[in-house]
């Protein structure tokens, strides 16, 4: 089974949204952890032992466990997704911790991400931001020809960089202002860079930024901790583009006028 390590584990336990939470010391259950285990597998192992000991297992979010779904995500020793750059919690392996290392695990902390239980937070604010403009109003159906709309290689690449956002919320977790600017900017940047997204650019940026405000996220004050925490390494340059597009849209956007039938 290979090498194992013992860890000094402290986990945030909170039974419900309004219940008081506190750190529990699970060092006793964090011994002989295989270094090949991922961080989530480590929590699985601890949970199995907690169940055997008659303690309620730690609640944490997870889904694909291959770093693309954005479900997992806890703050490990003050850093969202732990100490490794560009790595989600599920892709973080225990070999990156020293034997005997102290580990403190907490949920994302932001007003707009209320804690559901233990390490699970409610990130549906992100869904509502997407509903406010993170889409293209287009006929769905068969896929169009790949070369029907010509997109320069560099534009396609950059849009893809923005689209790499998995919506995990690490940017919010890292931000001292609890701002989701990087998430909103990445989603906006993805659509607004491409010709398919441009017709609705103004409406999209106004709608999504407004929703971001209404959800109670803070504003960006250029700390750039989001970029450092992002497992997909989304650049803060997208926030600059969002700011530019938002300022421009605020100056020029007028809501469409309803047109009567038959006047084409």
């Amino acid at each position, binding site marked *: 089974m290979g090498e194992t390590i013992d860890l000094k584990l*402290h986990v945030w336990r909170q039974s419900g949204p309004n219940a008081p939470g506190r*750190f529990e010391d699970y060092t006793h259950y964090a011994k002989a952890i295989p270094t090949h285990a991922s961080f989530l597998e480590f929590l699985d192992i601890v949970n199995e032992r907690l169940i055997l000991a008659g303690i309620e297992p730690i609640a944490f979010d997870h889904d694909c466990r291959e770093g693309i779904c954005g479900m997992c995500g806890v*703050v490990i*020793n*003050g*850093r969202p997704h732990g100490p490794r750059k560009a790595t989600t919690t599920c892709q973080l392996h225990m070999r990156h911790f020293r034997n005997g290392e102290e580990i*403190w695990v*907490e949920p994302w*902390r*932001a*007003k*707009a991400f209320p804690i559901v239980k233990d390490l699970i937070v409610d990130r549906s604010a992100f869904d509502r931001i997407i509903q*406010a*403009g993170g889409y293209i109003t287009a006929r769905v159906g068969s896929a169009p020809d790949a070369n029907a709309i010509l997109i320069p290689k560099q534009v396609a690449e950059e849009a893809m960089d923005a689209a790499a956002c998995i919506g995990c919320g690490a940017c919010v977790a*890292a*931000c*001292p*202002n*609890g*701002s989701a600017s990087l998430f909103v900017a990445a989603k906006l940047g993805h659509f607004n860079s491409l010709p398919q997204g441009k017709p*609705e650019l103004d*409406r*999209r940026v*106004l*709608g999504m*930024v*407004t929703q971001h*405000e*209404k959800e*109670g*996220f*803070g*504003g*960006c*004050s*250029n*700390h*750039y*901790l989001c970029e*450092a*925490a992002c497992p997909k390494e989304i650049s*803060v*340059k997208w*926030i*600059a*583009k*969002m*700011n*530019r*597009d*938002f*300022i421009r849209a*605020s100056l020029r*956007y007028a*809501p*469409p006028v309803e047109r009567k039938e038959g006047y084409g």
Partner: protein
Amino acid sequence: MASSQVLSFTRTAIGQKALVAVTGIILYGFAFFHALGNLQVFLGREAFNQYAEMLQSMPKLVWATRLVLLVALITHVVLVVRLARRAREAKPAHYRFEERMDPSEGILRRYARQTMLLSGLIILAYIVFHLMHLTVGAVPGLFFVRGMAYENLIYGMRTPWVAGFYLFANLLLGLHLYHGCRALFQTLGLRHPQWDRRSFAMALSITAVIVGTNVIIPIAGLTRLVGGELPEDPQEVLRTGEEKHTVSE
């Protein structure tokens, strides 16, 4: 995308930040020209007092500038306080370990961005003190005679705690502008990878001129490198000033 429910520009954080950046540019521009003007202290008493007189001879321009600066300053401060309060609400709880994020970030940049509110607050207090000292002349115990800008400045800087406060506040101003002048490009969406280096370099050199000047003047005054020709006792200046006055009459 219910467009009717879109928040007005100044009610969003991005809009407020943009106004903070624009008012910041206004204050920044003033600080630059103010520092350049003050460099004339090194040209001697005559030149500096003439410069001060020249400014005072244009009261309309002076008051228009003061009005613009006052509005800019108030807007800057009020919006920042609002944004900070909002940010605090958005982050009600903190982590056991705060922010051990990016080791590649320099300590100066890190310190500058973490202390924007604090440095801003101290700079605000400094602006009030500076105006009371050299514009109104209402700081008890400090030499002030209207029309003697050079003497007012030099005798002020000979007082160690005054020079010390000017030094301290201007070093903080340096930190504040260091973060601010980089951040404003981001806030106003004026960044582009091709231009980043040039725009940052430009903003940082202007900052260096402002801070350099504002730091050199108190040091030069305190060490008598500038204004050493003035007598130690300010009363003597007044007496000789009166004599000259009577002579010229």
